[in-house]
């Protein structure tokens, strides 16, 4: 277990060497492979460096990494689909779009470790094919970009969510129509008092999306007037200009909407929902302890066998914790190291043979 950490100096050099070899056209030899091994080690070390911890921690990260789930900063996931009868949300399982008032349920959970830095709150959906071709193309980007002509005459790609009762739908298309509309609220339970956690809803979308790609229609008057002549998507309870009270987060530039419009790559995905910022340096963002999650359950997933989750996660400068990268780098690194050693031995042996072969028989 006293595996030495990779020498920090080695991490930068080897790729240069490799590139150099490529440039020279000389084939890489076993030394290169060996160096690659060391290099991978370095990356692994970085990857597993938990924020705020000391170097001592990273030195054992080599062994720690495969069980990275034990890392206190691993995201916390709560499935609130409610398929199990015991679940508080079971009652909402077969909710429909237009049920009002919305079905609400509360899930209590305990945080074993505190989250020290900013916490990111995600919702996750499973078995939801946001990458289905019919779905992906069912949008009109020029409408979303504030083009007035497209607003009233959306693209054919939006079918069958293009018009409703002869009025153009804004925003049109299947993606917009199926926008996630559960409301999640987080409370800290401290001696039976529920303290709401401040959830920040801005800053969750790509800056370029929010400021360039998505634009409200242009013209005079408020948003309601600008969306005159259009109708809301069929499944939405309220029109697009009533998504939020703040004008810079309303209409097409509503960040929840923008996040939803970026279609996910895989049928199981998560999307950023809210941010929880660390308030001061004295307290962790979320202390260990009891919390409750209040859900306004509007979004039906049971009909297609889907699941819904809420995820809390912290993020390092490398992004969220990713077991894959760690494991992959370790595996590749070890293989390279192993091969490097083997080849080195062969090289030495062969070198000996080389000299003996020079003596002609």
């Amino acid at each position: 277990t006293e595996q030495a950490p990779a020498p920090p100096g080695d991490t930068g050099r080897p790729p240069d060497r490799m590139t150099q070899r490529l440039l020279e056209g000389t084939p890489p030899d076993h030394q290169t492979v060996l160096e690659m091994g060391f290099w991978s080690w370095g990356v692994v070390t970085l990857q597993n460096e938990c924020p705020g911890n000391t170097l001592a921690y990273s030195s054992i990260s080599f062994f720690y990494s495969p069980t990275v789930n034990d890392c206190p900063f691993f995201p916390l996931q709560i499935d609130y689909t409610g398929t199990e009868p015991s679940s508080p949300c079971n009652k909402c399982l077969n909710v429909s779009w237009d049920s009002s008032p919305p079905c609400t349920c509360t899930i209590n959970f305990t945080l074993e470790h505190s989250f020290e830095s900013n916490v990111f709150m995600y919702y996750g959906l499973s078995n939801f094919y946001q990458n289905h071709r019919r779905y992906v193309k069912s949008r009109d980007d020029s409408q979303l970009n504030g083009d007035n002509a497209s607003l009233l005459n959306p693209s054919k790609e939006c079918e069958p969510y293009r018009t409703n009762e002869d009025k153009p739908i804004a925003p049109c298309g299947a993606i917009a129509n199926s926008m996630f509309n559960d409301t999640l609220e987080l409370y800290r339970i401290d001696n039976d008092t529920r303290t709401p956690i401040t959830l920040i809803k801005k800053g969750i979308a790509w800056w370029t999306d929010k400021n360039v790609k998505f634009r409200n229609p242009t013209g005079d008057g408020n948003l309601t007037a600008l969306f005159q002549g259009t109708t809301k998507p069929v499944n939405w309870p309220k029109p697009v200009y009533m998504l939020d009270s703040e004008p810079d987060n309303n209409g097409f530039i509503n960040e929840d909407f923008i996040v939803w419009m970026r279609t996910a790559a895989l049928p199981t995905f998560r999307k950023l929902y809210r941010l929880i910022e660390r308030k001061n340096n004295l307290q962790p963002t979320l202390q260990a302890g009891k919390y409750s999650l209040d859900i306004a359950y509007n979004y039906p997933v049971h009909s297609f066998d889907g699941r819904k989750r809420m995820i809390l996660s912290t993020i390092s400068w490398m992004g969220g914790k990713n077991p894959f990268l760690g494991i992959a780098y370790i595996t590749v690194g070890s293989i390279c190291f192993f091969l490097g050693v083997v080849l080195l031995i062969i090289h030495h042996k062969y070198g000996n043979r080389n000299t003996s072969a020079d003596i002609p028989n």
Partner: protein
Amino acid sequence: MVFKVPSNPNHSVSSFLFRRCAVAACAGEEKRVGTRTVVVGHRPVSETDAYVAQKFCDNRIVSSKYTLWNFLPKNLFEQFRRIANFYFLIIFLVQVIVDTPTSPVTSGLPLFFVITVTAIKQGYEDWLRHRADNEVNKSNVFIVENAKQVQKESEKIKVTVNGEVRLLSLKLVGRGRCVVRAGGGMSCPGELTHYAVRDTTVLCTDEAIDALTATIECEQPQPDLYKFVGRIIIYRSNQEPVARSLGPENLLLKGATLKNTKKIYGVAVYTGMETKMALNYQGKSQKRSAVEKSINAFLIVYLCILLSKATVCTTLKYVWQSNPFNDEPWYNEKTKKERETFKVLRMFTDFLSFMVLFNFIIPVSMYVTVEMQKFLGSFFISWDKEMYDEEIKEGALVNTSDLNEELGQVEYVFTDKTGTLTENSMEFIECCIDGHKYKDCISEVDGFSQTDGPLKYYGKAEKSREELFLRALCLCHTVQIKEADQVDGLIGHPEHRYTYISSSPDEIALVKGAEKYGFTFLGLENNFMKIRNQKNEMETYQLLHVLNFDPVRRRMSVIVRTTTGKLLLFCKGADSSIFPRVQQEEIQQTKVHVDRNAMDGYRTLCVAFKELTQKEYDKIDRQLNEAKMALQDREEKMAKVFEDTEADMHLIGATAVEDRLQEQSAETIEALHAAGMKVWVLTGDKMETAKSTCYACRLFQTSTELLELTAKTVGESERKEDRLHELLMEYHKKLIQDVPKNRGGLKRSWTLSQEYGLIIDGSTLSLILNPSQDSSSSNYKNIFLQICLKCTAVLCCRMAPLQKAQIVRMVKNTKGSPITLSIGDGANDVSMILEAHVGIGIKGKEGRQASRNSDYAVPKFKHLRKLLLAHGHLYYVRIAHLVQYFFYKNLCFILPQFLYQFFCGFSQQPLYDAAYLTMYNICFTSLPILAYSLLEQHINIDTLTADPQLYMKVSDNAMLQWKPFLYWTFLGAFEGLVFFFGVYFLFQNSSLEDNGKVFGNWTFGTIVFTVLVFTVTLKLALDTRFWTWMNHFVIWGSLAFYVFFSFFWGGVIWPFLKQQRMYFVFAHMLTSVSTWLAIILLIFISLFPEILLIVLKNIKEKSHQVRNKIIRKVPDSLSARPSVRPLLLRTFSDESNVL
């Protein structure tokens, strides 16, 4: 029209063109039966001639394929006839018609690119042709019209019908003959003498020409350049019409250039597209390379992969959709139209959609790249300085670029001997007169017999015989004299004044030889041949007839009349064709010499003569003229007359002419052997001559066991066939049955075992190939073939040109269809050059037919070594790598897209953005492989040339067999899996960015694509062993371009796009550290097997090198043997190894 060909005042070569002209009678192709009649002069033809108006084409040469108007439709039509293009057109149409995942642009644009590039290339080539045509068509010629010369554009020359001006057979001014030199590119043999018809030579002015009335009858246009049959009938006002025969010597071909004549008048008989040159131009068939066959095989595999992928996806889609909430969940409803579509129809369109989605697996741009590679690559051969010959100031010539890689696959080399292995520069060595040997010139008037040498009986023949012999040498030839500058009559040093010109170097050697012994040929004037004898007296002989040389007869004769009125016939030719025609008792003593000389590798000719009586001559004269006049079966008739005439002659002696081996031909042959090629020498020479040449150039080693199937071993008797059968069985047993069964492993490494050489001659070959009807002999051919294939070297002597081609065809069609190469320099090699997979012409002394008909032409035989071992090897490796790489990069391109279907509900959602799909093959990954396939030298050129064994590494299409193909395919599949699942697992993460924001499906595809582009490009970088600045530029440039393009493409909201999918996707991707790490990791994993393989190979090679160091010493010492002229090593003729 009669026209005149002017020449520059300074007497240099003037170029002009003649449209082909003439003639009739048809021996030959059924299509062109009939004759054409051309009328010369103003006056109507006499009514007695049944004159049928014939239509002749105009004199415009059209070698271009397209015109401005029809270029587009015609070119498109031709391009879409190619299977691949048509396939992509269909895919494109499917995309337009059916609702498919990718826009029609993704396949339309590459197709458009491919079509455009090809169209531009073809358009350019056609423009060049137009230009060349115009140059020819607009060039000025002088036409005699109403006794005046009118300058006109050449395309106005007509073979007109209504009798005004007509064209030609040549009237030549001056001395009635001219030497014509091959004009740029299209040529007849180097220099030939053409003659005017005797009766027209007096017509030297425009007026005289204008007054001429004649008709010319000639064959309909035929492509055979060396044959022309026709006759001219000249009408004179108060005389009987005179008929004269016209032969090839009266016909000037288009593009010919006058050499020592200032101007000539001529009649055009064939014009425009009917000229012989034009007919030949069209007739060249396309040779296809074996690599293309491999490509097609691979294409079929990939087509199967494509179809099965589409089938699998379609099937799974419907299985998956059988669950209603998968088929149509509430969030993703179908349109009305979709719901109403028939299920079968939906399945069909789904299948087509998948096809479209995966169609990139069949590389669109490969064809273009392959074509560009071939086109550009062929320049390397013509640029090669080592193949530049100082003597003729020319380098190698590439006539077709389609066969470059074939040069690396050659298994059989068929080579001509004279002019190919040897220099074809003849030197008179010795002669024998009546059995007495004369060697070296001792220019004393009376004594030039040689006294040293192994011959026991030496002495002198009678003086008169000597003189007769020398006169024969001086008279019996077709040599011309070219006078250098101003001839002032002094002929003291003939070498300085004259140059002899002839189409056959032998003749020059003989004339020069005679000169050494005191008889100098001074030239031919007005049909009188002048010679100066030993006593410095002039002798004049009237030349009555020349019975031209032809390869079938293998002899030629002249009939002359001496000043005293004696009629003499001199004949010279191969011993086999002379001996049967002379008195038998004379043969023996000469035969000894001939055989000995032949054994020493000299070319021998026998000289015979006979005296004709006036009566005999008259008869011959009449027969000859009749035969020459014949429009039907002229050749047969001529042959018969020749046969009759050249009989009962008296043998005077024999000559020996040495043809020196070309420099390094022995080393070249040795290298070809070492490279695993089998070299066959096909020659028309005598067996003994050929055999010693073969020894000299090390085709046969002293250790080679020779098997002979010649007239000598088979015998002449009637038991020939039985004896042949016996021999064949014996050899067969020896070579095939007795050899241990290890041939599989040793397929091309016979160097280890006993080598066999086979000698066969023409007559035996025809016995084998065309056995008499009866019996057992039918499978001779098979047995013979088996024997041949077992022999390292085969010598076929006394071959007729057609037999050469027959042999080539026989080998070409054997099992496994080995790649054959023919190399030759003369017209008699053309048939085998055309027959073989690769035809190589030597730019030799025997004219340009061979190099014109060849695929490649080199100045010397020794250049074959570099051409095959270095260029061929490299071209093959390059193109093989190119092909494999193309399939590989498209497999790992499309495999992730296939895998993605499993995660998007088989909805045909493309993984990559349309721009990437489109640009991948045409921009991001095309240039590096093109540069690689042009410049790569995985082994240094010098090493390749020096170590012929390396050639065997790529033999049998080694790099395009199924094994390497599978390797590449698995590599592609492995990388595709790594790309996709690597990114898939990466996306399991909550967020890849440090601000918690998430990526969508387009980022997913972009990461995969980035890894893909970098991997395939770096893979190529790993494979590249020869880096030039160009490689660096295109490899790193492509990667930089990809990055630049991605930023650019994602940096703008494109108004013409329906969806802004890629907006800032690439930039966001790069802000994530995890993504960087993942990309680097995935590239490394993908390349890891490759790197590992290279490392292992390196280790293996190093250990091999040590072992080889010792082994190689042996062959090194062998090839270091200097190539002195072993011709003189008499030991070769000991025949110790002959069975």
